[in-house]
């Protein structure tokens, strides 16, 4: 499979504090790349820089659009607009990411209006079809976000991201805020949409078990640096880096009789890249 996104030497500092430090990676089409790392390691900053929600200090982000390779950061807002259709994001917090003053219909219709897709009637049909796809009742359209549970709101967020039929979807801890059974439902949904529509996911997560199950490749970040990357099974079965080993040892085992290994955090030596 060919690559759909290539990030090279991406750097971003906040007040002279490097938060993303020369990160490079590539994502192949219709696969899922997991990004893991502890809180504050720069995952959100990294994915938001890719989308230009944050302006990075240096580095290039190249995207293989339907019309060929594009450098996302050298485009004018006008040139960027059609690419926004192809790259979408699902947010972490299902409560904060929906405008509380818009109905579900208005929320889902807005991307279509902005990109000038369809007329009023056909947009309505698309919204209804999308709601069905994310397993929400058709009557949801006339309601406001406050009338939904966390899991349902996350489905609305997914519907908003997918209604433009994107090719690359960035999920920034999109399931972390949900409880385990809802998490499983949403992950199933994402997986079935992937096989149906051939989506590519960039999947930021805390939970390593979720990553192992859901991702094809994984990228481990520590303090703004990528310390390890590769196919999930390889990294999980044979971690090369101390930090990865530490992360893996922190996964609680389902077997209650197994003893916890002491965390060798203090002795950990990380060479700064």
């Amino acid at each position, binding site marked *: 499979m060919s690559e759909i996104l290539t990030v090279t030497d991406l750097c971003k500092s906040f007040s002279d504090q490097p938060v993303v430090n020369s990160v490079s990676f590539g994502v192949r089409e219709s696969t899922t790349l997991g990004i893991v790392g502890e809180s504050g390691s720069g995952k959100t900053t990294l994915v*938001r820089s890719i*989308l230009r*929600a944050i302006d990075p200090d240096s580095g290039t982000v190249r995207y293989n659009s339907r019309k060929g390779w594009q450098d996302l950061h050298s485009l004018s*807002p006008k040139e960027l*607009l059609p690419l*926004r*259709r192809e790259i*979408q*994001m699902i*947010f*972490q*917090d299902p409560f*904060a*990411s*929906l*405008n*509380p*003053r818009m*109905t579900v219909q208005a929320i889902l219709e*807005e*991307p279509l209006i*902005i*990109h000038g897709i369809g007329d009023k009637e056909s947009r309505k049909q698309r919204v209804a079809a999308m709601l069905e796809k994310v397993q929400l009742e058709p009557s949801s359209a*006339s*309601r*406001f976000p*406050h*009338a939904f549970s966390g899991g349902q709101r996350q489905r609305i*967020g997914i519907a*908003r991201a997918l209604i*433009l039929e994107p090719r690359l979807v960035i999920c920034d801890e999109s399931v972390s805020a949900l409880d385990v059974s809802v998490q499983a439902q949403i992950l199933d949904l994402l997986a079935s949409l992937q096989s149906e529509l051939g989506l590519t996911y960039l999947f930021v997560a805390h939970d390593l078990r979720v990553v192992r199950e859901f991702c094809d490749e994984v990228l481990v970040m520590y303090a703004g640096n990528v310390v390890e990357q590769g196919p999930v099974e390889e990294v999980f079965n044979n971690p090369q880096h101390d930090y990865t080993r530490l992360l893996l040892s922190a996964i609680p085992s389902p077997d209650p009789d197994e003893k916890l290994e002491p965390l060798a955090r203090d002795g950990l030596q990380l060479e700064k890249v």
Partner: protein
Amino acid sequence: MSELRELSPGRLAWLRFRRHRLAMIAAGVLVVLYLLAMFCEFMSPYTPQQRNARAINAPPMDIRFFDAEGQFHLRPFVYDLELTINPDTWMREYEENTSIAYPIRFFARGEPYEFWGLFEADRHLFSVDPDGSGYIHWFGTDSLGRDMYSRVLYGARVSLSIGVVGVGLTLFLGVLLGGFAGYLGGMFDSAVQRMTEVLQSIPTLPLWMALSAALPAAWSPITTYFGVTIILSLFGWTTLARQVRGRFLAMREEDFVIAARLIGANDTRVIFRHMLPSFTSHIITTATLAVPAMILGETALSFLGIGLRAPVVSWGVLLQQAQNYQVIVMTPWLLLPGAFIVITVIAFNLLGDGLRDAADPYSSLREQ
């Protein structure tokens, strides 16, 4: 229950507001006051400059249903006032003359007026028989025999509208400057920030005085009115601008705003469809709480004789007549405009509290 789920945040806020009893009462009081002010020509029995030589400094007349013999009359009436000079103090004193009663007529003909400067009319909501023999002053009269009730209503028009016009101007300046400062940041933000700091560090009363003193005395009443309004709002916008700026700065980073940008919305759409709507309830509340300050500002300036001047009638101008202690002792009804100011200010504050609680149910929790 299923209906509740379809309600918009606006409807929910209205439901919460309705539970706020005091705020509902305050809203009712304000509606009445503003209606009286809007239609003051019709609502008042006299025009503000009309003099009654037979009732100078007359006390408020009682509106009665029972006559001196204790008999009930369906149509309310007032008794004639008889002037006596107290032989000990030489003071003018009025006593009710129970042999002459003036029945109150509704929609009676009276002094002609120009309604909103549009057309001539002479109907008044209530008055006494228009043959010229009777009179009704249920708020008393001033030292020239002018009806206080009519003057309070005409004054309400000026004072209450200054509050709204002034706040409108304040809102415009505050939202515009604060909004751009918050959204654009950088140089413009710093400039606006410094300007508000300077304006906020100057004590307002001396500054108002200086500026009002600069208003040419030759200006017509209407120009002075706008001059005073502009002076009041020129210093009122800073607080709102700071709040708007803060909210914009914070909201720029909110997920749903970033989400809007990521689906391709441009700046105008982000500001007007996503940022401002979640801010309107706050703006309305702030505006409501700012109106009394404007009204008090006008009153204070006029009271000191540097705001509006007679023949314009405003509550501040009316209170100017009540500046000495003689008034308080002998004709205390001249202080009635003060009571109206107090009621208006309290009503606006209660209404603002109710609106704030309704718009943001968590705010009262947060403040504890």
